[in-house]
């Protein structure tokens, strides 16, 4: 599928800030399921910083904006050719050993309920079936409900109220998989929503689990599937914060507000 992304994030500060530093993971991953045709990221008034590919295979690009500034626009435009690999991250070059993704973070900590749920799935030892069981369990126990949680909501909290968005579902899947000894990580990216409107947000997140014979495989509890050619993968991390496409800090007292405009469209081949 040929997907075109048009993504603008607008940061506004209630009073001008003295400077902004950002770290971006906004470039499509390089693996057999994705081929980038064109891609451009710009930051208004921004000075391009260092660029490198990190151990997890993500391309990181730093930016700085010298203040005083009260508005910053981060624009992403590009076209990616995608192939359905049934969620398998084939041909992705990375160095970080899977064991590193067994570590819990505050939002992915398995409480008693998550542990019980995980243990009940009998997933210890991994395997594709076990991974599917876990993903289905998450989809069954945390209903996709936009607006039901905040960005700081933990996996345990989302399970307790039985509602959440893709971030909460991915966090819950990470917590349960790690509990079962399966390395798991958070993936952020884009999703092309089909015409009938059955799919969710275009800025999307899912989980990848490390399975012995297959390596990293994606699971999207929000859509009860594995990522296919409607998905564009950007980067990964231990949780949403770690995998955030844009991390940034502003120096100054102004309160920050954010506005996102995003369209992911299918091109005629």
């Amino acid at each position, binding site marked *: 599928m040929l997907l075109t992304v048009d993504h603008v994030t607008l940061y506004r500060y209630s009073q001008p800030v003295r*400077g902004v*530093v*950002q*770290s971006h993971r906004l470039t499509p991953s390089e693996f057999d399921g994705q081929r980038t045709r064109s891609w451009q990221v710009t930051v208004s008034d921004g*000075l*391009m*910083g*260092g*660029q*490198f*590919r*990190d*151990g*997890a295979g993500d391309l*990181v690009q*730093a930016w*700085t904006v*010298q203040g005083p500034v009260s508005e910053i626009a981060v624009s992403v435009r590009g076209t990616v050719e995608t192939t359905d690999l049934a969620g398998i991250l084939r041909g992705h070059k990375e*160095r*970080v*050993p899977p*064991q*590193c993704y*067994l*570590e819990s973070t505050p939002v992915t900590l398995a409480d008693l309920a998550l542990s019980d749920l995980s243990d009940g799935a009998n997933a210890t030892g991994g395997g594709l079936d076990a991974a599917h069981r876990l993903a289905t369990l998450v989809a069954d126990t945390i209903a996709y409900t936009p607006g039901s949680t905040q960005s700081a909501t933990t996996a345990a909290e989302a399970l307790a109220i039985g509602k959440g968005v893709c971030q909460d579902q991915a966090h819950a899947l990470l917590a349960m998989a790690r509990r079962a000894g399966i390395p798991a990580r958070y993936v952020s990216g884009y999703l092309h929503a089909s015409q009938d409107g059955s799919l969710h947000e275009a800025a999307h997140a899912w989980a990848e689990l490390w399975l012995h014979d297959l390596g990293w495989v994606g699971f999207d509890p929000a859509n009860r599937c594995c990522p296919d050619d409607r998905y564009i993968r950007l980067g990964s991390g231990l949780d949403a*914060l770690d995998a955030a496409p844009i*991390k*940034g*800090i502003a*120096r100054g007292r102004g309160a920050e507000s954010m506005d996102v405009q995003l369209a992911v469209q299918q091109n005629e081949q």
Partner: protein
Amino acid sequence: MTTYFNEMYENGAVRGPYGQLDDWMRNMPAELRQMKQAEAEALFRRIGITFAVYGEGGDPDRLIPFDMFPRVFSALEWGKLDRGVKQRARALNAFLADVYGRGEIVRAGRIPANLVYRNDAFEKEVVGILPPKGVYSHIVGVDLVRTGPDEFFVLEDNCRTPSGVSYMLENREIMMRMFPALFRENRIEPVDTYPDLLRRTLASVAPPKCNGEPVIVILTPGHFNSAYYEHSFLADLMGVELVEGQDLFVEGEFVYMRTTEGPRRVDVIYRRIDDDFIDPLCFRPDSMLGVPGLMDVYRSGGVAICSAPGAGVADDKAVYTFVPEMIRFYLGEEPILNNVPTWQCAKPDDCKYVLENLKELVVKEVHGSGGYGMLVGPKCTKAEIEAFALRIKAKPHNYIAQPTLALSTTPTFVDQGIAPRHVDLRPYCLVGERVELVPGGLTRVALTEGSLVVNSSQGGGVKDTWVLAG
């Protein structure tokens, strides 16, 4: 009854290196000694070398006790330490380059993967990033103890930011000022080349994007830190700026410091802060300490950070047991300095042994430092041992145990005159383009009779450490 090796006297005779000190000691009247001791203390206080104890309140301007009786090594003895410490520093750096690269030692099954990759000190953020010259730990402090004429053991390695080197330098300055004659009678290798060697070491690992003479800074957590004196002392001796996180900022591909003349680019950062406080964007979003964006500059080759973030995975007390294995694996050599035999409480068999033999063992927390959270079996009551056993059972992976070593003693001035006290040694190995070791180090002495704990936070003192020229 354990017998302890006395570094000055053996079978009633004075050992070679201490030859001159016997007379010096005998000919010093008590009044002179007291006068000199007071003089030394006044000098330390005036210079401002004070020590704030971690985790305790009390006087922030406390002095660390200085014992005037030097500790001496012959050229021959030092030769072995020199080779052994350098060998270790090379192996530790090779290990770091490996585990943040291809992980061959893990693949070869020579060290358990979880011990490395699930270690708190392992930073996945620096995987695949090769620092300049492949060096991760630029200053390696190796803690050594001696148990016999030719028996040295490594207690632990410090690969992050070993402190105490200012004492090595100041102890020597003060001894030379107070007892110049001793330095004429003995041919003592100088240690005052250290700041210059450190500066050269740091300059040699300047990043690829640096052109011209690299600008070096020391990054301190601030003036409330107990080692602040050392930070400012080293900055002064090297002629570099001492900065706090707020003095640095990232713009474009580089790091700059804020000066009265505008931004000045920084090429090498000798940091004396923990990984967690380097960059809130990368490690601790809740912390406003650190320099936002610094890690991106580092990883894209715009600045060198010494020691490299993540270097701590090599000096973990559980990883420590594998250092001899690293020496064989990376260098193809046999270790020159021995490890202390260590039981890992994480292993059920070891844990069982430890719990049954607590009375004879020293137990340490894997991530502990400064002599805290430690059990010295032979010095403890039954109740203390039982209480500690409960802690081990609750978190076995948190503890390692070692036999109680018969630490050597050297003569030390005490209230009653001169008496043997237990000592250890920390030399500071510099790793850059070259591997260098200044002939000397910090000797710490347990001032309490019979005590084996030399940490300054627990009432230990320091001595000048001499290496005699060959």
